């Protein structure tokens, strides 16, 4: 089973910190008199300059934005590699060859299978045995390892990574980075960046049925969507207008995560720690009126027979079966699953058609979840700070993961060998290579045979809007562009907790979240009447909700005061 850790950790911090940081760094630079290499002026490295004597073997003298990294002598870095069965690791991959030839970099790889990735990572770091570069880490997963000192504080060293700093400045990512800060003000993971968040999840509807009934494929609001479902129900009384999936760990997790921002709240995968910032302090998401509105909407769907009641608990396979066999007329999807649904019905020879619709607007507006711009990244084990190749490593990682050239390389490959560029700059994949649905049926696969677009070396498939969308199918492009008109919500201020606080809080969080999940499902199904909402809130209060909020608000205050 997979851990769908999509809870972006919110670590709010005040903007005041940035200003102080700039002043300190600037004075440190002036006083120390050395310019390090290319660090941007808007660095937020709080600590002073790091002394790289003895640790800059193989590093480039002059390295900045736009430079191609090449180590001055061959280096080998330890890498904790996530082995994905779609592209098993091969020694002769072009990506490895190219990195060795052009960058003078090779890897000492320690593999772990995708199926046990998180557990193995946790074990290996816990036992103090972690390799230098720990790939595929989501912001939030590093928190447990901070106290033990096993992980390098990334924020102290990003000042030496010019492309990183450049993107932070260009894309205004300060607030997003602040979310990851710990109690000591530092953050410990090097996140992947997205220029703009990319929408992936939505509803897939039977466009043939919708068209037959004269319904628009672009419902503007959820109320409109509900009316559409009613029409479908009247026309097809034996089928469910909507079913849903991804309820493995909680009711309708994927769907609620993209629906909830339109109701002014967060739910499902987006629930995170259950904190909503109301402008002055944190309140508990599961007890807010907006959350209630969301649940009320869904409860009405179930009550009117518009939503299959089993959606909140069923297996994904069952959900897909219902949709594919026509017992349900719409289902939750992402841009890859819809292809699977389509192949299924095509093979069965039916005339069913489907589209992924834009997520409608809700009572709180036409919104998109906050904080989706810092994504899956990597960590460094703290002993790299002792390595003689430390500076070279920072430069290399900066180039590969944050420079436009490196990002393009990791995603598309080598120009001339795996792709070509048109006159207007569009990249065209070689005809004999397929990936992500481009050039279907081609004999070679960019991931499996060449090692590019690999989740370990490509953070988030791109990051600039342009690169990100360069490999998408036209249908997905339409969807993404339609969704990009949504308003991205703002982040809450950071409230990092101390180690001891976190120990206590994790138990509160777990208990509260369980109760919220359980009751969300119960309210939606009608097992519990919404009249009992107040009773439910009192139950939450009895489960240490006030204590939890107190701790978190105090932490936020503490951080705000210190910065």
């Amino acid at each position: 089973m997979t851990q769908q850790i999509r809870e972006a950790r919110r670590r709010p911090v005040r903007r005041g910190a940035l200003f102080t940081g700039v002043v300190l760094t600037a004075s440190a630079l002036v006083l120390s008199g050395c310019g390090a290499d290319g660090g941007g002026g808007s660095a937020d490295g709080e600590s002073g300059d790091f002394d790289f004597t003895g640790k800059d073997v193989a590093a480039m003298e002059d390295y900045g934005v736009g430079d191609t990294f090449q180590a001055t002598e061959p280096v080998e870095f330890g890498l904790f590699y996530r082995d994905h069965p779609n592209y098993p690791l091969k020694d002769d991959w072009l990506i490895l060859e190219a990195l060795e030839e052009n960058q003078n970099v090779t890897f000492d790889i320690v593999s772990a299978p995708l199926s046990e990735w998180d557990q193995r990572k946790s074990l290996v770091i816990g036992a103090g045995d972690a390799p230098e570069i720990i790939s595929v880490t989501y912001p939030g997963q590093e928190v447990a390892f901070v106290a033990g000192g096993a992980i390098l504080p990334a924020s102290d060293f990003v000042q030496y990574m010019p492309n990183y700093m450049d993107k932070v400045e260009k894309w205004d990512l300060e607030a997003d980075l602040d979310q990851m800060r710990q109690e000591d003000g530092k953050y410990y993971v090097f996140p992947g960046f997205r220029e703009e968040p990319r929408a992936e999840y939505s509803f897939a509807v039977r466009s043939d049925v919708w068209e037959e009934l004269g319904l628009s494929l672009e419902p503007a609001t959820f109320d409109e969507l509900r009316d559409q479902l009613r029409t479908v129900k009247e026309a097809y009384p034996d089928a469910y207008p909507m079913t849903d999936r991804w309820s493995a760990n909680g009711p309708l997790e994927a769907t609620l995560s993209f629906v909830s921002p339109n109701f002014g709240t967060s739910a499902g995968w987006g629930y995170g720690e259950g904190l909503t910032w109301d402008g002055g302090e944190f309140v508990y998401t599961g007890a807010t009126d907006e959350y209630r509105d969301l649940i009320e909407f869904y409860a009405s769907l179930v009550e009117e027979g518009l939503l299959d009641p089993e959606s909140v608990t069923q297996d994904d396979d069952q959900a897909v079966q219902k949709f594919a066999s026509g017992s349900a007329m719409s289902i939750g999807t992402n841009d890859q699953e819809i292809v699977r649904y389509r192949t299924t019905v095509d093979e069965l020879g039916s005339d069913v058609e489907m589209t992924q619709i834009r997520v409608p607007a809700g009572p709180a507006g036409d919104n998109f979840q906050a904080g989706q711009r810092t994504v899956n990244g990597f960590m460094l084990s703290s002993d790299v700070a002792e390595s003689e190749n430390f500076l070279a490593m920072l430069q290399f990682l900066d180039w590969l993961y944050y420079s436009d050239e490196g990002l393009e390389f990791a995603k598309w490959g080598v120009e001339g060998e795996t792709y070509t560029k048109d006159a207007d700059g569009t990249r065209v994949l070689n005809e004999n290579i397929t990936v992500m649905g481009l050039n279907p049926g081609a004999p070679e696969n960019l991931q499996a045979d060449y090692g590019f677009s690999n989740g370990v070396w490509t953070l988030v498939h791109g990051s600039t809007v342009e690169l990100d969308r360069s490999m998408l199918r036209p249908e997905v492009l339409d969807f993404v562009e339609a969704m990009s008109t949504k308003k991205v919500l703002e982040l809450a201020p950071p409230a990092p907790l101390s180690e001891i606080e976190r120990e206590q809080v994790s138990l509160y969080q777990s208990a509260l979240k369980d109760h919220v999940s359980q009751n969300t499902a119960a309210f939606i199904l009608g097992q519990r009447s919404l009249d009992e909402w107040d009773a439910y809130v009192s139950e939450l209060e009895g489960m240490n909700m006030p204590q939890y909020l107190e701790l978190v608000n105090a932490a936020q205050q503490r951080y705000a005061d210190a910065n």
Partner: protein
Amino acid sequence: MTDRLFRPAVQGGIRDSRSYTIFRMINAGLIVVICFVTLYPFLNVIAQAFSAEAYINSGQVNLIPRGFNVTTFGYVMGDPMFWRNYGNTVLYTVVATVIAMILTTTFAYALSKRNLKGRSFFIGVAVFTMFFNGGLIPNYILISTLGFKNTLWAIVIPNAISVFNLLVMKAFFENFPEDLEEAAAIDGLNTYGILWKIVLPLSKAVIATMVLFYAVSFWNSWFTAFLYMDKAELYPVTVYLRNMLAAATGTEALGTGGTGEASQVASNVKAVTMLLTVLPIICLYPFIQKYFVSGVMLGSVKQ
């Protein structure tokens, strides 16, 4: 065959009672029902393994494969790493079972002697380990320090003794007729000889059972492998298949094959991986079955 089932047997001149005959009929009937209930889901899985994606996704597969194809099988079995890992599993299982049997049998036999001084203490030492263990990290550090990581030993040693099996075996040995052992002692055998020449040959049933238990558990194990192996070539096939299953059914958008081949095997990859893991071990059972004969020859020798 049916009349053999239902005809009341006549043994030693005494006919079976009527109630017993009825019982035997009901008994056979119930067992047929049980067989059906246990076999049906298995046949369903086999059918799914050979069916096309579309039929599985729309829930149309029951006992007969629909859209018969062996694509997933081909996909899996065409990967040389799969065979490499399969070989690993066979190697790990055989070595681990041998080591486990040696340790467990000698331990159980020694502990079955009631007049062994300190016996209770030693049994207690074993039972204690059933409940208390050190946890993941201390074990990891131990195996790492011993240099077992990425070797065969990391898999076959840590779980070499199952206290459960040990205690069951001990109980069997305790029940072994003492007179046989005494007679052998009189005839000049020492402890090792008695164990090797008398006790073991006559305990075929329990030894076969333990071999089966250990072999099955080592065959299915993946936990130790994922903990201590850093290279894909060293994985047993269970890790390989688990990995494949996780990729096919996970919601990791990043790095997924998208519309590539892999996502199309998602629906029956569960069935295929299960069959590939299970078939060899099921085939093992009939060979073990012939050892389930009476171990005590005493009664067959007429006075």
